């Protein structure tokens, strides 16, 4: 029997000729990523070595990445002290893939890894962040783990006792209509699968729509695969993957895509035609509470957010800037924009998008995660409503359990910021 992409990657990483769903393996890790929660990983890592004659040493510092993005610059002395502890640790352990709070090489981890070429097709990537699924966009098997699990990876270089997940094959065909994008596709899919429909499973994306989709769009799909519960989302590597890694990430060494076998065994198959898909909105307080925009259009919004590891890339900002050019953010609405990385921020400056946003009245913030999870700037007041291109709308997500968060694409966010209500960017279609 043939293998899925996840099975092939896990077989290679475990040194086995073949594996199938349900097998238990210990894959070697190609990249282990953490952000500020490295402070907890360090604590657990040091505890592993207690009572042993061994000195705590990361198995291979070149395979570890640490990116500060959740609270940047530090919002409190507590965070600053955690960041200081991590900074000292990575220096002592010779971790060179370290991205501090900087305006040149800083940014959100799920953009920093791709744009620096840290992730390749076929790699096993783990991260102490649930949206580590993002990196499946480059054909890797990438999944989120907890801090203690990461401490174990730092010590041993492999993930212990991983059950090979079954795979749901998602075939996507058709051409997106204007102002409809990867975000609408993944929201639609999550609505169909439900928030736990892919729990313990992999989503493997195929079809002509996916082949035409840029790496930026693929990152959106894989980023939010976890919102259907998926262990990982994967777009098998292809010519676009190679283009991205060569042209945008500066990778020069060989790139070998991993493709599924023709007779790979899938848990189930989902077929989607996007040619008639319109803008989708995830309504409070679960990501699978997805409705076509018509059903929620007109809802007043207090804050619009464009950015994050989901939709803070250059093409997202381009779509928003085009809609907002010469327009103004509505009087009773605030608009926050935070690019996914410092590099993207600089590109947006060069292209004039930042000027467009600021002239419209939006606040352009430094790259970081803060507003998405209500931990650093952009919190909501009691009874307020936010419309956001981020990935979660759980109760309390943006820092206030008495507020509401709706999720959407950058096009919907931009059109809605101008109107002050949830607005279809297609106008009277």
């Amino acid at each position, binding site marked *: 029997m043939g293998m899925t992409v996840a099975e092939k990657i896990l077989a290679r990483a475990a040194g086995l000729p073949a594996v199938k769903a349900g097998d*238990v393996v210990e894959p070697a890790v190609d990249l282990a990523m953490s952000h*500020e*929660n490295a*402070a*907890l990983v360090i*604590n*657990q890592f040091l*505890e*592993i*070595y*207690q*009572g*042993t004659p*061994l000195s705590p040493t990361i198995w291979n510092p070149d395979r570890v990445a640490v990116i500060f993005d*959740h*609270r940047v610059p530090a919002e*409190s002395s*507590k*965070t600053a002290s*955690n960041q200081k502890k991590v900074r000292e640790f990575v220096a002592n352990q010779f971790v060179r893939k370290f991205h501090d709070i900087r305006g040149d090489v800083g940014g959100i981890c799920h953009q920093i890894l791709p744009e620096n070429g840290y992730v390749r097709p076929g790699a096993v990537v783990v*991260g*102490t*962040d*649930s949206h*580590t699924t993002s990196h499946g966009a480059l054909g890797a098997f990438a999944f*989120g*783990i*907890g*801090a*203690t*699990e990461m*401490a*174990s990876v730092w*010590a*041993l270089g492999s993930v*212990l*006792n*991983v*059950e090979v997940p079954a795979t749901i094959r998602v075939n996507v065909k058709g051409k997106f209509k204007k102002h409809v994008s990867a975000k609408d596709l993944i929201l639609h899919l999550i609505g169909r699968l439900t*928030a*736990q429909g892919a*729990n*313990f499973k992999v989503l493997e994306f195929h079809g002509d729509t996916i082949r035409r989709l840029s790496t930026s769009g693929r990152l959106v799909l894989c980023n939010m695969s976890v919102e259907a*519960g998926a*262990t990982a989302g994967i777009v098998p590597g292809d010519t676009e993957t190679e283009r991205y890694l060569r042209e945008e990430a500066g990778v020069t060494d060989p790139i070998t895509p991993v493709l599924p076998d023709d007779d790979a065994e899938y848990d189930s198959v989902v077929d989607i035609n996007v040619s008639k898909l319109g803008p989708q909105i995830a309504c409070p307080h*679960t990501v699978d509470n997805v409705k076509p925009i018509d059903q929620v259009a007109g809802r007043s919004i207090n804050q619009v957010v464009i950015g994050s590891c989901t939709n803070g890339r250059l093409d997202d900002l381009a779509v928003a800037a085009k809609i907002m050019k010469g327009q103004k953010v509505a009087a009773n609405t605030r608009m926050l924009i935070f690019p996914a990385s410092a590099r993207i921020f600089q590109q947006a400056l060069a292209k004039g998008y930042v000027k467009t946003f600021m002239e419209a009245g939006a606040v352009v913030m430094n790259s970081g995660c803060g507003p998405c*999870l*209500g*931990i650093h700037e952009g919190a909501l007041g009691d009874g307020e409503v936010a419309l956001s291109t981020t990935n*979660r709308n*759980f*109760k*309390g*997500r943006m*820092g206030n*359990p008495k507020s509401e968060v709706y999720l959407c694409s950058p096009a919907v966010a931009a059109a809605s910021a101008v109107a002050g209500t949830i607005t279809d960017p297609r106008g009277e279609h």
Partner: protein
Amino acid sequence: MATVVYEIGDDISTDVIYPGRYMATVLPTETPQFAFADDPVLNGKLTAGQVPPGGVIVAGSNFGCGSSREQAVSTLKGYDLVIVAKSVARIFLQNAINLGLGVVMCPTIEANEGDELEIGATEVINRTSAARFPIVPLPKSRQAIIDAGGLIAYTRQRLVAGR
């Protein structure tokens, strides 16, 4: 026998269990104070010491969905709570096993606050309603970690054995 101390619905996210704004607090000894911080009733009972160790939270499906933050497990572990849920999200389940938090997957569980549960190897018996509910076993892949007393102990064993 264990007492149900709270009943909670479906899709309880890590943002509800341990709100993001407390994530700068990382040490397992310091996280319990923020358990269900946005739920004043439950947080109040926990922090006031009104919940005895071994108390059960009965939850619906997809408990612990969302973030990989381990604080969502350590905060519950701090009170030695046991979670009996219809289903549990993958990362939360993995973190729970790694830290030794009691989690029981029981797809048909029906229980109310105050009910007495007997949690066995294959079923949960609600002694108050006299109903029995089958348990979905934990992934067999994680048994070695449970047997070692958690992932830190297990990794330590492996590390020492490998050198």
